[in-house]
């Protein structure tokens, strides 16, 4: 019985990575969510229904800065969202990816032509380089950045680059490239719970909960 | 679907594994072949270098092939060989560009090539066969 690199990448390595991913994510969330929650005894300004719905609404409204801030942060947000959109398009609409996810979830959905995905990948890759450039050149972001930021960037980039090389059959044989691509995904899954990639799970609850707390006071968000 | 007979069957053409383009238009393949031929001809003119293109190695659709044929047209020479099956060598309207077809004894096409040369190499008589022929003629009844 032989176990080649590809078999290892999508077999034992993927299984271990998914195990670490699932357990790690829940672990990390439970570890803080089960900490003390202070009950707010102050009289709310609005009904619970109202401030809860304001919170849910904020998931959408926080997607774009308030008009007053657009001049200062609009470009940064646009950059951020566009590469995220690119990443999601590649992840969710590329045939082989649908096949992969389908093999996990048991159902599939229509994708985009692979040529279109290649185009999106090229654009996303460029934007992603732009993100790094911005992180390194902006004094504020550079100061805030730590190993987590750079490593998370690197892992995501690795997945993109190996993915594109695999599709284009560049540099090595398909199965080697595919194995490297899947291994990089394994690495990403393993890293996921430990770093900032967790924001994928945080972003909507964070917007909703923080805004609901503010809305309880009648405060804008 | 309960019985084998219910499975729909469609025979696909054996001739054209490459699907014809839905728009019926010509691919860039023809242009590429023509420009390749042109540069091969230039080399033939300059250095007397002869060369070949195996048409079966190119991903040409039926339409592509017909387009290539009409682009190259027909020239002065048609040669027919009878050697382990029939073969034809046809000069196109571009001097030095030859269209070769080889068929096996059963008549099936076994090779199709473009040869860029003063004449197709296969037409020349072989020196050892010429020597054999000379010997054979010498030993011919009439000369003895």
């Amino acid at each position, binding site marked *: 019985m032989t176990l080649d690199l590809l078999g290892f990448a999508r077999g034992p390595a993927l299984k271990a990575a998914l195990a670490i991913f699932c357990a790690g994510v829940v672990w990390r969330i439970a570890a803080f969510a089960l900490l003390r929650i202070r009950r707010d005894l102050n009289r709310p300004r609005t009904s619970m229904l109202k401030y809860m719905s304001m919170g849910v609404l904020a998931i959408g409204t926080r997607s774009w800065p308030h008009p007053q801030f657009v001049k200062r942060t609009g470009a940064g947000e646009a950059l951020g969202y566009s590469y995220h959109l690119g990443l999601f398009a590649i992840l969710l609409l590329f*045939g082989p990816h649908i096949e*992969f996810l389908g093999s996990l979830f048991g159902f599939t959905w229509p994708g985009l032509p692979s*040529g279109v995905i290649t185009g999106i990948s090229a654009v996303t890759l460029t934007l992603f380089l732009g993100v790094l450039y911005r992180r390194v050149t902006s004094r504020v972001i550079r100061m805030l950045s730590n190993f987590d930021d750079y490593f998370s960037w690197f892992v995501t980039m690795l997945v993109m680059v190996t993915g594109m090389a695999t599709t284009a059959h560049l540099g090595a044989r398909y199965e080697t490239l595919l194995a490297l691509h899947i291994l990089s995904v394994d690495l990403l899954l393993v890293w996921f719970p430990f770093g900032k990639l967790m924001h994928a799970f945080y972003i909507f609850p964070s917007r909703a909960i923080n805004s609901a707390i503010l809305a309880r006071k009648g405060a804008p968000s | 679907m309960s019985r084998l007979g219910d499975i729909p069957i469609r025979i696909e053409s054996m001739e054209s594994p490459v699907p014809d383009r839905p728009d019926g238009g010509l691919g860039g393949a023809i242009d590429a072949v023509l420009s390749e031929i042109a540069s091969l001809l230039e080399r033939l003119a300059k250095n007397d270098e002869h060369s070949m293109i195996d048409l079966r190695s190119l991903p040409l659709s039926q339409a592509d092939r017909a387009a290539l044929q009409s682009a190259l047209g027909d020239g002065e020479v048609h040669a027919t060989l009878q050697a382990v099956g029939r073969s034809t060598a046809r000069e196109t309207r571009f001097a030095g560009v030859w269209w070769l077809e080889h068929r096996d004894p059963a008549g099936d096409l076994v090779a199709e090539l473009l040869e860029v040369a003063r004449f197709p190499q296969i037409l020349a008589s072989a020196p050892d066969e010429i020597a054999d022929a000379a010997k054979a003629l010498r030993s011919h009844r009439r000369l003895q």
Partner: protein
Amino acid sequence: MSASGPGLTVGEMLRKHGVSRRGFIKYCTATASALALPPWMGAAMAEQLRNAPRPSVVYLSFQECTGCFEAFTRSFSPTIEHLMFDIISLDYDDTLMAASGTAAESALASVMKEHFGRYVLIVDGSIPTGASGAYCTSGGRSAEVILREAAKGAAVILAVGTCSAFGGIPFADPNPTGAWPVSAIVGDRPIINVSGCPPIPEVITGTLLQYVTTGSLPDLDENRRPRAFYGNSIHDRCYRRPFYDEGKFAKTFDDEGARNGWCLYELGCKGPTTYNACATVKWNGGTSFPIESGHGCIGCSEPGFWDKGSFYTAQAAADFTKSGETRPLEVLEFAGATLTVGAVLGAGSAGVGRLRQHRSELDEVAQNDKGTP
């Protein structure tokens, strides 16, 4: 069963059979075209072969199904007859030869002695080593012993078929016979692997032809397969490739996509990871190949192909469940288990966090008064 007198070159042999030089050039051109070799190779091959001596070939069959040999005999160009009578001298083959028993044994011994260091050894089938080699014997000797002996005087060994090249089906988990590929037994002779289950007939004969023509080993890939035939993946040369690039996939074997001839990737086609000449040389004299007939490639020419999961699971699919084919239920169980582990660990962390947390008298106030409205 030597088919011709010894000592004649290929050219002499041909002329004896009344084949003209033009006929031979044409034949070689057609062969080169069928093997997807460069067109000038045809004429060059014809020129070289005419003056090349016809090598002696020994064909040994071990733990195999004779499928490879069946394929070998069905080569269209060069045909096996042509190959056998004109180009090589097939001096031992236990399936074809008329002789049997001691006569056959002594024929083999005499070829090995007479052509020592010059004959081509073709091996078909894997070599079982379990039970002291008792799973495959001939004349009271095990396959391993026969192979080792025959390998000593071979100029080159052609491991024909995935079994002899990579172990194939006998080698697959749990490998009850302790089977091994030729390369695991013979370490000191040049080996050319001609894999496939079976290999494409023209690839077997073509590789042989190429060796006879040039007298040297062809350019080999990392699996010791001739790059001329195994240099590209099926996927790279597949006529359905445009559909892959457009993202048009057949989802089942009888859907609209399948009828339209769309890419079979999602139906488990192993074309992207399989290196062979099926898409170019094709089968049955260039008639078709599995993908053209509507079935995905099963990757039979790759090492360990039998152990790489279901033929019908897409290449991109995850592959970590026992069944080989990932089933959502198994995934759910797996996710449930890991999520539970995570939740327990998280609750533990939070519990420890709460215990370690600094508390002030204010917390006590809030604690005591809790509940009173």
